[in-house]
């Protein structure tokens, strides 16, 4: 829960900075890009401490290092000029890879839950709710992100309103699941 709390703290910080930069009409592209790396790293750290077996922990580390490499390449390919606010495309491949990896890790954790029964009351287990939130979020955005990040630029002539709505809805569901997780983490009665 330590890393998850750090993840929530980071998300709050990012949102506040976003609002501030938007109100000041400042370029926040770097923050958008870095956000992906920071949140992925924090969530992977959370999974690293959640998984029990050494080979799973090793896999998490390998995936994280692989993701950093991919992110670095993607960052430079997708953002040749961070100053060009109107024609940038935020990391085209990293978002999709993030979603696929998160779905894989969540499914592995669910498999662990049903196989080894580490908790008696699953609905009061914070990690279950965190994984529910992540599963809904990434299942809902795994097909949307490549589409949106390939096409979406500042002066976009195409209409993505339905996709944006879906993205917002899954974000809301994820946040509700995270809130439930935090509520149960405080009680620790699973």
């Amino acid at each position, binding site marked *: 829960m330590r890393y998850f709390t750090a993840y929530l703290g980071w998300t709050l910080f990012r949102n506040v900075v976003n609002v501030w930069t938007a109100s000041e009409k400042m370029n926040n592209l770097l923050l958008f890009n870095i956000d992906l790396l920071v949140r992925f790293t924090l969530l992977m750290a959370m999974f690293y401490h959640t998984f029990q077996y050494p080979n799973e922990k090793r896999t998490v580390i390998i995936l994280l290092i692989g993701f950093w490499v991919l992110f670095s390449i993607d960052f430079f390919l997708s953002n040749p000029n961070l100053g060009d606010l109107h024609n940038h495309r935020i990391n085209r491949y990293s978002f999709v890879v993030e979603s696929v990896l998160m779905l894989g890790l969540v*499914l592995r954790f*669910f498999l662990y*839950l*049903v196989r080894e*029964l580490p*908790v*008696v*009351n*699953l*609905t009061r287990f914070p990690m*279950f709710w965190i994984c*529910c939130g992540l*599963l*809904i979020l990434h*299942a*809902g*955005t*795994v*097909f*949307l992100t490549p*589409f949106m990040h390939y096409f979406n630029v500042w*002066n976009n*002539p*195409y209409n*993505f309103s*339905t*996709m944006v709505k*879906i993205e917002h809805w*899954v974000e809301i569901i994820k946040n509700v699941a995270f809130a439930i997780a935090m509520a149960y983490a405080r009680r620790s009665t699973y």
Partner: protein
Amino acid sequence: MPVDPRIEMNLQTANDAILIATIAMLLMAIFIIVFVAYYQQKQAQYQIMVKELQERHRQELMAAMFRGQEAERRRLAQDLHDDIGTMLSVAKMTLNQLERHLDRFSPERAQAHKTRQLLDDTLKNVRRISRDLVPTTLERFGLLAALEELVGNANNDLISVQLEWPEKFDVTTPALDVMLYRIVQELTNNAIRHAGATHITIRFFIHENELRLAVLDDGRGFDIDEVVQSKQRGLGLRNIESRLSVVNGHVTFDVAPGRGSQIIVQIPLENPKLVALLT
């Protein structure tokens, strides 16, 4: 900037396809969550049921073991009393007759007298062992009478044992009586033999639908961890715990080296089925 209608149409088709795929993914995600929650709950219930069955089986085994132990004690006591006791009595009678035929001041008569005394002592010991093996008072007159007898035997000039028994105390069954008697016997023996206690109090009471037995002494106490780890010394205490586990009871040891001990036994009374296991 106007968009080419063909691109617009293709984009719309792609948009619809992605929407359908996203909805399908979301439905699958929801299905996975529901499945995991449901399956885990089922598995957890199954595990709890298996654990309960294992616990029940263990209790039945323990109960059978104690029933067997009691039956064996009874057989042994009967053999001692009926066979060895009778043979010793016959030997004593024969010796009496022989003694009468011997000269009053002869050394043979003195030898015979000494042998008769030894036989008397042996007979007393056989009766005592037989009585300890199967407390006949317990079977005939109940727990209170048996405990009074136990206390009476333990009391002497150096040791004072007190029994505190509530006025209304009719919650036990014959099977539970045997168990309580054995526990009191073990704890009293421990207090006298190992702790060197001079004052022992045995107290029975009912507290919140629970039968409680407290054995308090002023002995020199002992280190519970050391005793439990010791295979030989901890046998009696482990035996008490095993007996209590059959009826979901437990024992609390408030003990430490250099001071008196308080040992409290708690037996829940709401489950008569468990007590019936002992019968």
